[in-house]
């Protein structure tokens, strides 16, 4: 049951968080540089509250963290967490690629 090893509640949250285009864009931005929520809100044609909600989903998945700085919170990306999500995605297909390659090796042993 290798493929389903990815479907822990934790990875579930990660992939739910990344299944939305705006949230992916937020992750991309805050990996490069920390942004305040209001600075992020200016980048999208949606309300401050909507952007705040997206950030909360990402925060819950552990993809970003918020840090208080003066009157504002700065949003930062968690590089390790994003890398983990990336490797889980690749793992899905890799499981069968590895199996098929191994099956090939076994068949090659036949006289």
């Amino acid at each position, binding site marked *: *049951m290798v493929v*389903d090893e990815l*479907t822990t509640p934790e990875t579930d949250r990660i992939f739910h968080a990344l299944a939305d285009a705006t949230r*992916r864009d937020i*992750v*991309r931005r805050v990996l490069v540089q920390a942004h305040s929520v209001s600075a992020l809100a200016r980048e999208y044609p949606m309300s401050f509250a909507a952007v705040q909600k997206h950030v909360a989903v990402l925060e819950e998945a552990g993809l970003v963290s918020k840090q208080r700085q003066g009157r504002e919170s700065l949003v930062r990306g968690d*590089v390790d967490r994003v890398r983990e999500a990336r490797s889980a*995605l690749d793992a899905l297909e890799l499981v069968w690629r590895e199996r098929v390659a191994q099956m090939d090796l*076994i068949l090659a042993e036949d006289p």
Partner: protein
Amino acid sequence: MPITRVDKDLDAHTMTVVAEYDAPVERVWQLYADPRQLERFWGPPSWPATVTDHDLRPGGRVAYVMTGPDGEKSAGYWDVLEVDAPHRFVVVDGFADDAGQPNPNMPTTRMELELTERAGGGTTMTVLSTFASTAAMAQLLEMGMEEGMREAMGQIDGVLAEAT
């Protein structure tokens, strides 16, 4: 690589893998019908499997334990639904607890395997995996399929490379 196609269908929550072998259908079937051969490819290279139970008949069960690099164990099982040797079988693949019993709290995957003769000899293997949970797996597939996601992930890859 003998894999000729990988399809991910978000709406149906399925992944199809098609592979081609020079060996005849009966020989490829043995890879699954013989537990000693099955355990040589079922687990990933770093998680080799040991097949502890193998009854590949409708209503039967196949049980396996995979051992990780640090000695940690992950047990799984197949509930066998259909068998039409040497061409087709359908199983539900799930997680098991330490005692080898199905863990009802973990998601299961339905796996339909078909072996067909290729014109001129050899075998085409088609494995259709249907994921029971729409949540994580569907999103996983969506991410893999969606062009925008690929692009976004490509960009993130670039950022990650710079960050290290």
